[in-house]
């Protein structure tokens, strides 16, 4: 028989350790564009900012497709931590 699969295996990457604290960090807030994910971010953002931490908002064009490379690159370059919101 011939193998019908991609003949590849997933690689398991270690999760990066969380930063010891948020001092001087930037938190990215990525909405996947589902209904009410903005609402969740709107509630979360002031709490983070109140702790003196900088936030940057991001939004996928649609929740039905993977995030465009440019958005991911932007997050990687400008943020230390990211919160991704689904919601419905």
């Amino acid at each position, binding site marked *: *028989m011939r193998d019908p699969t*991609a*003949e590849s295996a997933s690689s398991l990457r270690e999760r990066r350790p969380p930063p010891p604290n948020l001092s001087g960090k930037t938190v990215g807030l990525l909405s996947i564009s589902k209904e009410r994910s903005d609402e969740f971010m709107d509630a979360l953002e002031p709490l983070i900012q109140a702790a003196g931490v900088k936030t940057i908002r991001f939004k996928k064009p649609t929740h*039905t497709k993977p995030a465009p490379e440019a958005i991911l690159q932007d997050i990687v370059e400008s943020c230390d931590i990211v919160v991704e919101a689904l919601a419905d």
Partner: protein
Amino acid sequence: MRFVAVVKEDCPTCRLAVPALAEMRAAGLDLEVITQDIPEFPRGLNPRHDDELLESHKLKIEIVPTVIAFDQTMEISRVYGWNKNDWREITGIDNLGNSMPENMPGCGALNVAPGAAERLALKAGEILLTSRAIEVDDDNDPMEVAFDRGWTDGLPVTPPTDLRVARMLAGTTRKADEIIGLIPPNLVPCTVEKAAVNAVMAGCRPEYFPVLLGAMKAALEPEFAMHGLLCTLAFSGPLILVNGPISRRIGMNSGGNALGQGNRANATIGRAFQLIIRNVGGGRPQEIDRACLGQPGKYTFCFAEDEGDEDWIPLAQARGVNSGTSAVTLFHADGVTGFVDQKSRTAEELCESMAMQLWSVNHPRLARWGNAILVISPNHYEIFRKDGWGRAEIEDGLYKALKRPTSEILEGAGHPLGITPAQAEKYSDSNGMIDKFHPGGLLVVRAGGPGALMSAIIGGWTGGRNNAEVRPVTRALEEY
């Protein structure tokens, strides 16, 4: 000069030609006789048995007897069947076969018998499969091995042997190593060969393969959003609707029980595509396929439109494909809902009645969410037809009947569920009305058998609410 003659005993022309072969030997010609069937035929001429037919394949024999003249290893000429003048010319023996008839056509060679070509091409190394070979010993059942390895959708699959895969590849003009596209979710490049392996497992015949390849290509168009569809929480899966001559050529069902079981092409084309998503892309239920419930159409969902009435404009033509060209339409399908109306007698009544039920797609208080397919059965179509309604009139009638006052379905207006103020603002017309579907979001097709005033509604994925990003896709099949 040397000669090779290929014969089989089960051929009257070969038996007839035996004395001529004997005369060639008697005249001192360097003649080798190769037999395809009975090892000792023809007696006395010391034949060599081509038991695997590999030699015949390499010599590209199509008809027996064939006599080939070689200069060293280079072929100079060949003759087929028995023809006295041809044989005399190739052998240079002027009185060859004096007492024999002038001409007798030959028979088909065994190496080109149906089914033999791919077996021999594999054996000759002309077809090289690159997918990993999985050896299954005699103590193991290949079907169980397929289950154990996680290759199946829950039903048994046809073991993808080299021969079956080679035969599937013969169903397309595309090369085995050509990449069809990146299969989500893992965005894995999928070759024609990998698609063929999965098509074999699904039970496809090679002549279905072009439909599958075309459907894959359509499903990978960005506006179909296959990634989102396969991992959705909702019910939906890919539906393949086939239009045009290929649907009849491969025997698809567009008649009675078209949406049900029992037709091999309908059943296996849809299944093959889902196996590719599973095996190549890595989209598996309870993993990245997050469906809460799913629906049985996720095993397979494929049917053909009934194009038997020439007054009817088939869906593919309505969506821009030339008449006479085969096409596939990919749709994000929830399950089938029966539409039962045995009372409407006019086109207007029926249209209004269909609109009532179409409002229930996703939820009656949601608008501009999922798309839908309306499958009109022959008896319902007859009501439209006798009132002079074709596609344009039906679509226009439904469009008008599917408007509703926005205020009735606002969230909080009588029920917490409904459209948001933002949606109301975006979609309401100047009369305060809202359309149930996005423009182009309701696909009207004809299928089914006669006998009842019933049609079908196939609801669409909630992801369709974002119609800038998610739309049904129609593509012509002529390239496959």
